[in-house]
């Protein structure tokens, strides 16, 4: 009996001692707790998550396209249907949730960087990763602000409600809405920090670089109607990278004329895909189509004629199948920067600069030998041309909604949007509060934050 007791005791002790180590084994070889710079870089390299920038809703709300009654009716997403006719819908979880999920990843990376002791030779990599995370976080804050907050108005930004600014990974901290001013300050701060950390070039355009951060700042300042800063940052961006594709070298017959990460792209990203923007059902507004000059190659490269005589969009800069998933390209591209400079310069009275950048872009868009440069010196006419070209160039690039919100404040450029569905006319007057989407019901219930 005694022997047994000793044996048992021995067995138990060895079991307990060896137990801890034995149980430390990883249950899945493909899983790990993020503990190396490579782990963090890998999280930011998740293209279909991190580079799904911009809320899909912004694409649905715009006036560049229409849906047939039938296609609208057969959509299974009620929130899409309602976005299309500018009806309030708070079941729109996908835009909000996915953006904040990516913001969490950015915060996780930023927090993990503090705990990872990297050898000095990897310091640069560590900085790049930090810059990338800040860049993505700012981009997501920016895109949320476009859909869920009023446009920036320097008179009311201090009191207008912005979006919650989550800056850490804690689940316990309550989400509170910031003001529009705080929102934009955070966006600008993150982008500015990232400029100093990001590399000049990356081996793949899914990763942000310095020029992308400059370009994003230019885009942000434009949205804030701060034209001198918009000018300055777009200029900094183009100083680093200013290649334009000459469209006469692109095959107009191709189904997908532009490749992903093509020469004009500084940083590649797309919006969260939404069915209404899928080329299968998304039909181009006929007046918009007619506004392209017949010598304008964009008329051939951007559009494909449908059986019913309507046109659909094929000029996706993500090189995807006819925009088949319904995303918009939302990355940073040189053409947008040209247009930001052209507009800002026109507004700031630098007509020659505006003309230089406008014509610099357009001469790459027209058939060889057919381009007639813009020469007007009338500032209003020039601005009108720039804005019209901005719409025509940046089609399905998710800039239109922000532009509408911004330009509607100016009676000269304000438009009233109209849709006809099942014989009924839906309108969105320029001043409408509906330019701000509802925050999802779930978010309001769980957090108690204020609804728009």
């Amino acid at each position: 009996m005694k022997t047994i007791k000793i044996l048992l005791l021995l067995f138990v002790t060895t079991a307990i001692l060896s137990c801890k180590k034995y149980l430390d084994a990883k249950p899945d070889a493909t899983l790990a707790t993020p503990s190396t710079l490579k782990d963090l870089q890998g999280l930011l390299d998740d293209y279909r998550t991190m580079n799904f920038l911009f809320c899909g809703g912004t694409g649905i709300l715009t006036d560049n396209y229409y849906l047939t009654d039938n296609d609208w009716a057969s959509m299974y997403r009620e929130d899409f249907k309602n976005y299309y006719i500018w009806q309030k819908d708070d079941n729109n979880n996908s835009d909000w949730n996915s953006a904040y999920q990516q913001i969490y990843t950015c915060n996780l990376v930023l927090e993990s960087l503090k705990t990872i002791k990297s050898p000095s030779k990897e310091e640069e990599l560590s900085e790049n990763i930090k810059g990338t995370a800040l860049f993505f976080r700012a981009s997501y804050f920016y895109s949320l602000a476009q859909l869920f907050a009023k446009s920036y108005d320097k008179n009311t930004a201090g009191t207008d409600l912005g979006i919650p600014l989550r800056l850490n990974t804690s689940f316990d901290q309550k989400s509170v809405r910031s003001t529009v001013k705080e929102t934009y300050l955070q966006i600008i701060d993150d982008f500015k920090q990232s400029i100093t950390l990001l590399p000049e070039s990356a081996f793949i355009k899914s990763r942000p670089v310095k020029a992308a951060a400059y370009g994003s700042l230019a885009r942000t300042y434009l949205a804030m109607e701060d034209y001198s800063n918009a000018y300055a940052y777009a200029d900094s961006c183009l100083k680093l990278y200013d290649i334009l594709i000459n469209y006469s070298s692109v095959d107009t017959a191709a189904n997908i004329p532009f490749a992903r990460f093509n020469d004009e792209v500084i940083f590649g990203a797309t919006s969260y895909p939404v069915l209404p923007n899928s080329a299968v059902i998304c039909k181009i507004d006929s007046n918009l189509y007619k506004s392209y000059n017949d010598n304008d190659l964009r008329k051939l490269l951007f559009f494909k004629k449908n059986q019913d005589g309507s046109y659909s969009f094929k000029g996706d800069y993500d090189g995807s199948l006819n925009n088949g998933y319904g995303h918009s390209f939302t990355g940073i591209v040189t053409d947008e920067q040209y247009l930001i400079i052209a507009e800002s310069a026109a507004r700031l009275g630098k007509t020659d600069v505006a003309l230089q950048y406008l014509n610099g872009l357009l001469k790459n868009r027209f058939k060889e030998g057919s381009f007639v440069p813009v020469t007007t010196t009338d500032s209003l006419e020039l601005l009108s041309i720039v804005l019209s070209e901005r719409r025509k160039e940046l089609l399905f690039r998710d800039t239109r909604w922000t532009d509408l919100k911004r330009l509607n404040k100016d009676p000269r450029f304000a438009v009233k949007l109209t849709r006809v569905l099942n014989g009924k006319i839906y309108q969105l007057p320029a001043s409408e509060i509906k330019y701000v989407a509802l925050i999802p019901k779930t978010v309001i219930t769980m957090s108690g934050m204020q609804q728009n």
Partner: protein
Amino acid sequence: MKTILCFLIVLLFKNNINAQQLVPVTGTVYSAKEQKPLIGVTISVKGTNIHTFSSKEGNFFIKVPAQHILIISHVGYTTKEIKTDSIGPQPLNIILTENEIAINNVIVSTGYQQINKESATGSFEKIDNNLFNRSTGTSILSRIDGVAGSILFDHRQGSDASLQIRGISSIGYASTAPLIILDNFPYEGNINNISPNDVESITILKDAAAASIWGARAGNGVIVITTKKGQYNQPMKVSLNSNVIITAKPNLFTQKNMSTSDYIDLEKSLFDQGFYDYSIDNPYYFPPLSTVVQTLAEERDGKITEADATAKINELRTKDVRNDFEKYLYRPGVTQQYGINLSGGSEFFKYQLSGGYDRNLATLLRNQDDRFSIRSSNTYQPVKNLQLNVSLLYTKSTVNDNSPGGYNDLIMGATGGAFPPYTQFADAKGNPIPLDYVYSQAFTDTAGEGKLLDWTYNPLDELKNVSHSTITNTLIADIGLRYTFSKALNAEVKYQYQNVDGNSSIGYNVNSLNARNLINQFTQIDGANVTYIVPYGGILDAEENSLKAVGWRGQINFNKTIGTKHSINAIAGGEIRQNETDMSGDRTYGYDEKLNHTDVDFVNTYPTFDNVLGNIRIPSGSEFSSKLDRFVSMFANADYTYNKRYSISASFRKDASNLFGVDANKKGIPLWSVGGAWNTSEESFYHIEWLPFLKLRMTYGYGGNVSNSISALTTIKYLPASAQVQTNIPFNRISNYPNPNLQWEKVGMMNVGLDFGTRNKRLYGSVEYFKKKSSDLLGEEALDPTVGVAYLTTNSANLMGSGIDVNLNSINIATTTFQWESNFLFSSVKNKVTKYLYDVFTDGYVSDGQYINPIPGYKPYLIVSYKWGGLDSDGNPLGYLNGKKSNNYDSIMYYTPLKDESIGGSAIPQYFGSFRNTFLWKRFSISFNITYRLGYYFRKPTLSYYSLLYLGRSNSDYEKRWQNPGDENKTDVPAFHYPLNSGSDNFYQYADINVLKADNIKLNDLRVSYAFSSHINQKLSLQNLEIFGYLSNLNARLWIANKDAIDPDFPTGLKAPISISVGIKTDF
């Protein structure tokens, strides 16, 4: 049963006795307990046919040849043998002892110890060898369907039915499957790799006292499979068995579809309304068109005349694709099973050796599987007090899944829909007809000007050109060493090694559509030059799976009876266990049977043919995974019985694993159970004569449940470059968000049971009541999505369950030539979700109850529907919005509160069981099993215009649809309005009008067997010979609750075909 069989055998010898000297014997038979004469007792002479019965007074007279043995037998009593040479003074006074003890003298196995059910406090259910082999079939678990109480097979999951013991204990984030023990250790592989031929019996551990010794994995109940063993001091016994099962070809026409002609008329009308215009000459995708649409388009384009088009279309009206399915893709199924067992033993050695071979030709052509198994189990006593057991099991199973799919499964490539009902697979001569599958004929006819490979599809060709096989090798080695210190004490060490290697490969030869399609997609044509980026040749997808499980157990067993009244039975020990599963997959291009292959470029993108898909990479198909589960456990179990009357039991187990992280292990509380039993009938004051056996027992305790997919820490998953075609660089994704409070699921269960038996075993059985509370169940907890994650898997749910299990066995008639036995099983289970932290937005919630959808206060498998308000005068369905009839479907579907919806109840049976009757007449035995499932509902398949238009899935309700004003008074099937209103379709499908009662009683099987006489056995030098026939999948409805008479197991009407088997069993 055994008595009767003996008796039957004895009967056979009636005419074989030569005129020997016969000794007359007279006597009286009495019962031991009551000392009363027994009537109808069989008195026979062993090895002859001579027999007689005792009279009313218990008297008998028989003439016996010298030097023979007299057998006195009676149902419910222990049989007695008397040598004629030693017969004393006559008349004899023969006393037969009641064998009611035998009712409960059942040994059950928990995987840790053998327990006598008589003294146990826990709830066990045993399926013995006879019952296990009552049905045929190659799968172990399907043989206990309908014969094991308290186990519910969820028939909605098809043939691989999942099963629940006493309802569910988890909501699906951890495993919901019971733990399966093969002899001593958990079996981690696919149970279908184990041959039923090796199974001796199955024990189901139902309550906490029975199961909680399995600790963290006991929560869902435990099924212990005990394999066959040899016996000491037994001459070699050889058993052979074999059977053939024939399964009929399914009758596809039992499915209720729209007629082909109606389908064509619908297509024509849709064509006129422009529905197909987007697809016809589609500039992007070139989707395939149906023959009717193609013909109509050609007619519209003036390519063919109206008369030709009409003639062509009208010819199609007589076709039905089901004819072709039945003719070319189905056959009657044939299953053959062969088994041989050898067993025996000497004083120090016992052995068991078995071999089996099963072959199954499925009803789908070219789907077949076979399994070869060999097993040996040997026990030695090399020195005194030491026992060594070595068991080895090896099986090799091969599964071929070459069929492109049966009816309802075979779908069209581009649309994912069904083939139109007039599709023909072959022409009159049986030659395959090419079908459009990926692209339209208009595209494939002209594409590549003949330089591309054929781009059409035919299932008959696919049948020849795709080979999909999975070969699994299973090896299980068990070594056990037991040292006996004293009669009371022994210690043992057990080791088990399981290795399951599976290799599966899908070969698409160059003629298969998959290969042709991929080759074409990447083909570059430059004038006369054709460049293949994907090499011209076949494609081989290979996948290797391996499972290695190693377990070590040390255990001390203590058994002692002190004096005459105290009996102790205890075990204690520790266990470590590791499961490692690895998987790797790869794809080879340019593959052929000569093993040629070609390397391809997975890195760069290539333009696709006609730029249809833009620039893409060649799909690579490489994948790897590697998982490791480790457990360390300590356990103890003890029973104490006083004076055979009072028993108490207690068990304890503590587990730790590598799954959750250290903190969770620390938090894990020990799982335990306690129980007590009172053998009332042993009490001196107990005098109920008609009920000589009565026992009351009660237990309480906990089992656990684990999930190996979540962790308390933030984890990221490494994903390969091939998982993101956009950038083709490897990346990571967060796979688990942190949750420091994570712990294991706990299932607490109380069980109260009553066991009883009447005199002569006429009626015996048990009634049990249980109550379960599952807490800390893993589920989704809703968070404010702004924090970064909308739902986090936490210990967020609780579940209650309660029910009753009744098991009754009776011998209704027992005469000398005829016996009728009945077995009745009844189980009731009610589950309710009592807590869930998910923010279940129940407004407008509907469900089929197909999956667990936990809503606090409701059943986990719940059917919820919209209230039906009939059809309006345009044939549109109406629902209710704020108490008023409405066709505002969006509002109904999004804003109806759950309380205003129609709660249809449980989607799984709440009451179920079976009633099995066995008749023995002479050497025949006939038994049939009636099963019943009550207290549940199902949603019948409905006509969905969306499915009809976009997926080609029809329903014969189309004929009953609203067509003219006034029809709303006659029908509930909505009108067809084009364009479709998706809301209307959805609303109708989920309206309560389509929820029917599923309650049913069915006769499921019938078994007839014949045992040959010992006379014939002797001639053939056999000990036993039995032939049997077994009819299964009868699905004969005795009663069905819903008025539409829809069988809830086969809601579409397409039934599992009937099977008939014949077999033979013999021992020598």
